[in-house]
């Protein structure tokens, strides 16, 4: 058999398997062994070459850096040994909760996604909250500040900040007083 001829092999490299659908060449009992040997040699070479070309070869980390061939998943369909494991049966409570639409209660965590910076940040606690590494747009007041250096404002900026503070205070006062008014003479 000419080894250089293109063959119609199919491979299942996950099982290190080669299928050679070409009929065995005609043989007599005396030539059987040599025929089989040439066929086997051709398939062995085909399979090894396919393994070496189609699969990534990596140097393993554990055993003294031996060369390993990374195999794909087996593709030949074979029956399982045992049935597919059944899903665990739900408890009465789980069934009821599913029916009612009440999920497991989970505490909302300390992390919040900061859209501007594209990262998760703490809402409170160390390196969290308004101060320091806090969220964007926070002025660094309150919270445990990681960034303890504060910028010194010039006159103009100071004035602006104070004006804003006055506005906010007045607004707060207004809201509070209007709230009181709305409650009427409750408690009397």
């Amino acid at each position, binding site marked *: 058999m000419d080894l250089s001829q293109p063959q119609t092999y199919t491979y299942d490299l*996950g*099982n*290190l*398997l*080669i*299928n*050679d*659908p*070409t*009929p*065995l060449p*005609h043989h007599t009992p005396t030539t*059987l*062994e040599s025929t*089989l*040997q040439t*066929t*086997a*040699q051709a*398939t*062995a*070479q085909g*399979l*090894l*070459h396919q*393994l*070496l*070309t189609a699969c*990534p*070869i*990596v140097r*393993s980390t554990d055993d003294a850096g*031996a*060369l*390993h*061939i*990374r*195999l794909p998943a*087996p593709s*030949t*369909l*074979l*029956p*399982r*040994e*045992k*049935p*597919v*494991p*059944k899903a665990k049966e739900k408890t009465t409570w789980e069934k009821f909760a599913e029916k009612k639409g009440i999920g497991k209660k989970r505490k909302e965590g300390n992390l919040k996604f900061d859209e501007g910076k594209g990262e998760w940040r703490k809402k409170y606690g160390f390196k969290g909250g308004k101060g320091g590494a806090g969220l964007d747009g926070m002025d660094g007041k309150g919270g445990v500040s990681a960034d303890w250096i504060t910028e010194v404002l010039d006159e103009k900026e100071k004035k602006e900040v104070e004006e804003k503070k006055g506005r906010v205070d007045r607004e707060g006062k207004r809201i509070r007083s209007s709230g009181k008014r709305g409650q009427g003479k409750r408690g009397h």
Partner: protein
Amino acid sequence: MLPLRQIKPKNARTKRYLDNKAPQQTENPRTTLFLKYTTCSEILQLLLTDLYALKRPLAVKFGKKNDIHPFEDPSSLEFFSEKNDASLMVFASHSKKRPHCLTFIRFFGFKVLDMIELSVIPETMRTLSQFKNEKTAQGLKPLLSFSGSGFESPTPNAYTLAKSVLLDMFKGPDVAEVDVEGLQYMIHFSVDEEDGDDAVSKPQIHMRSYLIRTKKSVPASNLPRVEVEEMGPRVDFRVGRIQEADPEMLKEAMRKPKGMDPKTKKNIETDIIGDKVGRIHLGKQDLGNLQTRKMKGLKRSRDVVDGDGDDEVMGVAEMGLEGDKRARVEV
């Protein structure tokens, strides 16, 4: 036979054992059990030893004789399967009607799935030790090769069943990586062609195992030239009785557990070379704001007022002059 009592584990070791034996998402490698009938020829015993040697350590071999007829009543085999957690069996029997007979049995959930009877032709049988050369280490994953058109039949028959069973038998554990040094031997199965004149006897299946020797190839390619050397055992089989799988049972056995396929990420693919290729979708580009190449010649001159046709012509002429001057300076 009574069904086995459900064992409730009393200690952690028993629990581990039972958990390992229970159905699993990704299955353990199959264990093969070798056993023999009350009468078993010497050839078969030798062969059983050799097959056991090839299959170790995923194999169990029974020494005692068993009065079992797999095709008539497999309940004892099912019992052995459950007891030993073995889902493959090779049963050797020798009788006047069916001489030198090996029955390969595959189980599903400790029940017989399918069986195939292969009778060994005693004249051509050679054992592992009859080939005087070195053997491979125990427990290596062999290369497998199936040659001949008989194995590729589109309709299930004895030969496709034989292929399936033999593949299951010899493929070893499923692994993600193999050592290059571990590719040492190949088991080669081949099936004869069906001859027109020899229609009475069915084609034989030849099992050969070869050591693989890689030689340096021609300098042009870095792929090795492969040579093979027979290691044994050498067996020729004649196909006997078969029992195909019950369709219901086979369907259950071929079922794939959910969640085994890796989740495909949208728009990320791997091409044939193995490079990761991603596709991203951009919005429609606004060509109105496109910044084309800036050129001196298109710049509006300072002293020209926009909107007047004559002035524009003037401007172009002037700019031409300006450009000339600049060019001269640069030189």
